[in-house]
């Protein structure tokens, strides 16, 4: 089965995010930042604020303890 996806770049599931900020520290391109809003669990969550800079390296994703990030090229 070939994975067919229409998105590219980083996709963050904000409901899974616990706001640990590890992805932000991991991103070499400053793509990510914390939202000022909270999700339904009460956590501030991570967002791609500069998606245009994303080099799809996946470092954010492998750093996320909650596997809230997917990355597509």
């Amino acid at each position, binding site marked *: 089965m070939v994975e*067919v996806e*229409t998105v590219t770049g980083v996709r963050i599931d904000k409901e*899974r995010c*616990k706001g*640990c900020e590890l992805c932000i520290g991991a991103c070499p391109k400053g793509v990510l930042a914390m939202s000022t809003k909270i999700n339904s669990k009460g956590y501030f969550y991570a967002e791609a604020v500069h998606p245009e800079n994303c080099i799809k390296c996946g470092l954010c994703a*492998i750093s*996320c*303890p*909650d596997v809230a990030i997917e*990355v597509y090229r």
Partner: protein
Amino acid sequence: MSKVVFKRPKALADVVTHYCPGCSHGIVHRIVAECIDELGIQERTVGVAPVGCSVLAYNYFNVDFFEASHGRAPAVATGAKRARPDLIVFAYQGDGDLASIGMAEIVHACNRGEKFTVIFINNTVYGMTGGQMAPTTMPGQVTTTSPYGRDVNQIGWPIRMCELLSSLKTDGFIARTSAHSPAEIIKTKKAIKKAFELQVANRCFTFVEVLSTCPTNWGMMPIQAQKRIEEELLPYYPLGVFKSPNGDASKS
């Protein structure tokens, strides 16, 4: 049509974990699940969860699971693997579980050369019960049961399990990695993958210690906790492959 750079592995159950924000347990879970996927062993893998924060690991993987009693995961894994050598068995243990109460079981499983894989999460503290001292707690570290800081003159130095287990003659794969940065996470993946591969090849006992954070009981933000690993833990807990099975290329 886009290419997947990173996607949730299939062997990881599609649920939200109970781990605190930034806790390394989640990272290592993901890595283990990826290895299971990549080796195509999901249908014959059985996990053994410890008593510790990862006690609920059985809810987080799409494989059959045991919940073991505190410290005895290696004995449970021994029972399962001896009964069904065709299964791929891994035990997932914390430092209180493995290095304190479970010392005899891990040493003997390693020494018998039991052909399963142990993932050892060393976060220098008893996470689940609220931050008590572990055998791995660093000198001077304040915990709820070392309120004046761990005094090595009174209770000795932190136990380094890789060094201890490597002193045994029986063949095995023993490595220490860390979860404190993307680069180290990648190396952790490599080590764990290697461990599972060796098990699939029915080679030897395999053991990967991962230096991990417990932001909650360290009283730190997750990023600060990762820094603590780098600055405080690494000098005492060196990373690397401590032992590889005889004739194995990656032998250090």
